[in-house]
């Protein structure tokens, strides 16, 4: 599978979750695991460009596909991606555990809909939980990200 533009060998254990494979075999720990039953959204990655929950996929299912993780947005010290920049500017995070998942969902949302309405923003990121912010600053982050992406 190709992760962030780099080809990686197939996982040796067919039971390996995509989230565990990314975290432990490839060593990209920015993809977080908050529940492992597909609710919290912390493990969101882009799978062929669309946001998915990496804890609900076997790594082996990703063979031949493109996976983008949070580390792929601004690799090796490159300037922050507009969505990352927006979360930073608007205080769109506190503990930050949910942030990579939110950022990946927002990247997916803005790709499909570069100028979302407030309602579309809410529905578009309703599959990610945040326990710290109460979401207000995340709403601001998405609006700012849309602005920065223009």
């Amino acid at each position, binding site marked *: 599978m190709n992760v962030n533009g780099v080809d990686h060998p197939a996982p040796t254990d*067919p*039971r390996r*979750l995509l989230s565990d494979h990314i975290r432990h075999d490839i060593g990209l720990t920015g993809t977080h695991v908050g529940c*492992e*039953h*597909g*609710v919290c*959204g912390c493990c*969101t990655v882009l*799978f062929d460009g*669309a*946001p*998915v*929950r990496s*804890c*609900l*996929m*076997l790594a*082996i*299912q990703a*063979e031949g596909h493109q996976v983008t993780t949070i580390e792929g947005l601004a690799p090796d010290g490159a300037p922050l991606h507009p969505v990352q920049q927006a979360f930073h500017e608007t205080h769109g995070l506190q503990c930050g555990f949910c942030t990579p998942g939110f950022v990946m*969902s927002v990247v*997916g*949302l803005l790709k499909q809909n570069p100028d979302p309405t407030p309602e579309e923003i809410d*529905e*578009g*990121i*309703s*599959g*990610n939980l945040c326990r710290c912010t109460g979401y207000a600053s995340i709403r601001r982050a998405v609006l700012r990200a849309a602005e920065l992406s223009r």
Partner: protein
Amino acid sequence: MEFLQPATWSEALAMKAAKPEAVPIAGGTDLMVEINLDHRRPATIIDLTHIKELTEWGMDDGRLRIGAGVTYARIIDELGDRLPGLAMASRTVGSPQIRNRGTVGGNLGTASPAGDAHPPLLATEAIVELASTKGTRQVAANEFFAGPKKNAMRADELIAAFLVEPARGPQQFSKVGTRNAMVIAVCSLALAVDPKRKHVGIGIGSAGPTPIRAAEAETFIQEVLEEHRLWERHVHCEPSALKQFGELVAAAAKPIDDVRGTADYRRHALAVLARRTFRWAWDDYRKSK
């Protein structure tokens, strides 16, 4: 665990025939939860995500034939106009990330009473197409659900597709949950109005051991519409009839008390949803005149 990844449908069927205990996986949004919570440890998994046919849909003798691997996201985007009820249900499935992976085929395979796709499939009298190396067979959605998380599939079969007529009239779907997004149904209801057949279909979810078609309520409301020539007159039915309709829908349920809600509440809510969804659908029908 053995992981099989057939490239073609015939290969998949051969694998399932050789290993009937193998568990198929599509989007994984049900199965992987069970595996991760250690509720299930399958010895063999057949990954169906590489089979192109399963991701295709098209018309087939007046019906839409939708591959079992078409995701909820695509049902909303590509089939929202032809299957509005199923699209509305799809919009309530899990989260955007789940809808990008989860499939109606997977929902049918799990056959949970809470599966969001089931009520609209029941309301629209959809047909499930099952296949094995021995051939294919078609099972009406109404006969597909056999018990809690049990369906009519034989061990050597896989779900190929489901078939459903494009909507000829208004359709609705409503789901009660205690959160405004990402929630498993406390109960749900789908309603489909077919002016050509003068038919009203109703499916309910999360209100019994299986998804349930509310047949008596369907008959009742059809008789009311017929008797008062409401199809022709394009007016609303009497509130008393609507009330009785709601009660019949509630009576079709066989709910229990669980962590998501009580049996009494589920019956109550289904009656409310039945009245509301019928009014919305009938309003649409009247306006379409």
